[in-house]
């Protein structure tokens, strides 16, 4: 259980090994040719190493991206290699360029040093190939790689990204207007083919490209959901800004977009919490869920308090080696949980264990003769009354003589 905290940080690196396998199994075949435009995109992001060379090459980015791509690779090869850990796969990427037309873009992108970004890259690159607009495609690739770069920079784990649509999302650092200089540079050079006006609009108001959206984004709502899945589970503080597309039939006001992003973030967190709190699978609605969360946290804190009281009364035979206790601890933790489940006379049962919430909240601590005798009779009575009154936390805690406080005394 304690590994939960570790998992979030370690997951990013675990996905790296799977990147190539994931990409190739995702089956992007028969794709039209489009250039991996990560150079200009990267220049847009906070990655300062990809500054000059990528921007210059982007000016030639019109209808023949392929030679430009080669040039990009040549210019910024070293910097790419610096930042993509799988250098060897980059080397094998190079010969794949001639076979580009056969739809090996996925392999290229994926073998191009994707670590934890692999799934995001897949998602971004799984464009609507029915769309014929190359600008669309370019932009989406840039978006795809933008997100890829962000992921690499921030090293956050990916929530399972499923391929579809042209959505990708990055989080606004502070919901304030962007730095216009940075955006102008990146956006304009990303779209030399005449969409600069739109780009200006987007960078000013976060307005989505609705005409392309409705025309090309056939599965709008699904794509929105997947874009949401693409976003980080936890936002790193050094992310840039959000690109959000309005779904079909939704308002495209910048404020409502920002609100929607925020709501989606909040609901995502609530879902995470729903998994953590036992017995809350069927609850829909934030208010009830918040109630449950609060109850659960309070009960956990009360349990800590109660256990520390028990530890205070138990006179520990500390002749035991700490290591021995520790090893026994870890080994016995599973076994003791199982015993607790059956309300064995040995110990208190965890009220929230294994989904028997909320029926078993009251613990009867003093029915067990094996317990170390709590010295004061009144204390016993208080404890009993606490637990027999059920989970009425405020009044019950007040009746508890010694530490009558709702919040742990910190």
């Amino acid at each position, binding site marked *: *259980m*304690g*590994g*939960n*905290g*570790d998992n979030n*940080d370690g997951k990013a690196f675990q996905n790296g090994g799977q990147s190539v396998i994931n990409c190739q199994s995702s089956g992007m075949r028969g794709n039209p040719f489009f250039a991996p435009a990560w150079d200009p995109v990267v220049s847009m992001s906070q990655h300062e190493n990809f500054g000059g060379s990528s921007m210059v090459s982007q000016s030639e980015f019109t209808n023949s991206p392929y030679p430009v791509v080669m040039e990009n690779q040549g210019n910024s090869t070293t910097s790419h290699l610096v930042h993509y850990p799988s250098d060897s796969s980059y080397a094998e990427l190079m010969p794949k360029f001639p076979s580009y037309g056969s739809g090996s873009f996925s392999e290229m992108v994926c073998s191009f040093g994707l670590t934890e970004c692999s799934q995001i890259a897949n998602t971004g690159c799984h464009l609507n190939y029915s769309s014929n607009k190359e600008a669309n495609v370019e932009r989406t690739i840039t978006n795809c790689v933008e997100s890829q770069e962000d992921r690499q920079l921030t090293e956050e784990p990916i929530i399972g990204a499923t391929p579809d649509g042209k959505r990708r999302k990055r989080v606004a650092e502070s919901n304030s207007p962007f730095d216009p200089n940075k955006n102008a540079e990146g956006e304009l050079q990303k779209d030399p083919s005449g969409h600069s006006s739109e780009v200006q609009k987007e960078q000013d108001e976060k307005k989505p490209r609705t005409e392309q959206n409705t025309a090309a984004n056939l599965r709008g709502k699904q794509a929105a959901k997947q874009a949401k899945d693409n976003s980080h589970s936890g936002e790193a503080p050094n992310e840039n800004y959000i690109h959000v597309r309005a779904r079909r039939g939704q308002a495209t006001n910048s404020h409502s977009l920002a609100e929607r992003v*925020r709501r989606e*973030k*909040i609901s995502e*967190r*609530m879902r995470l*919490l729903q998994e*953590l709190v036992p017995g809350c699978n069927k609850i829909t609605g934030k208010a009830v869920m*918040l109630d449950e*969360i*609060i109850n659960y*946290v*309070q009960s*956990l*804190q009360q*349990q*800590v*308090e109660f*256990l*520390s*009281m028990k*530890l*205070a*009364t*138990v*006179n*520990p035979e*500390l002749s*035991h080696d*700490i290591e021995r*206790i*520790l090893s*026994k*601890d870890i080994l*016995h*933790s599973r076994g*003791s*949980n199982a015993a*607790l489940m059956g309300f064995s006379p*040995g*110990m208190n049962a*965890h009220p929230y264990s294994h989904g028997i919430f909320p029926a078993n909240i009251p613990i009867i601590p003093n029915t067990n003769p*094996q*317990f170390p*005798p709590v*010295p*004061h009779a009144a*204390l016993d009575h208080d404890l009993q009354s606490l637990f027999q009154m059920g989970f009425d936390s405020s009044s019950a805690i007040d009746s508890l003589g*010694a*530490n009558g406080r709702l*919040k*742990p*005394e*910190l």
Partner: protein
Amino acid sequence: MTSVHPNSTTTTRFARRFLISLSRMRRPITLGPPSDEEVCRRTRRIKLAAYSSMARAVGSRRAWSRALLLKVRNRVRFQGILRNRFLASKKKRVIKRNKASGEMNKTDMLRKLVPGGETMDICGLLEETAHYMASLATQVKVMQSIVDQYSK
């Protein structure tokens, strides 16, 4: 004090720290059964030790662990006299903003429960709550098994 072993999880780190701090709190058996007041005092100390062991085992990655350690440090050293001024002012601003609704809603209750929750927005608060809940569950599990050990 932190023995860095391979495969050390938060659980083992917390358990180790907590056991070490428990061993420091032993009292001589010859004194007989502890009085009520002593039990209360020990309870508070053990509880504090449990929370700070957990926060230290988690590290500074999380806002709640940082806030908890700060609180413990302020409490232990300065008895609440010296406070982090920036946090206090920010806290006041945030509380004023949150209390604009008038009554105390669930979010405020959650803020009180999670250490460091006063100065966070809803999004960060929910995330910290999730992590805090997981750590609390670990804490309860470990403490429970320690109590099991001692009463066998």
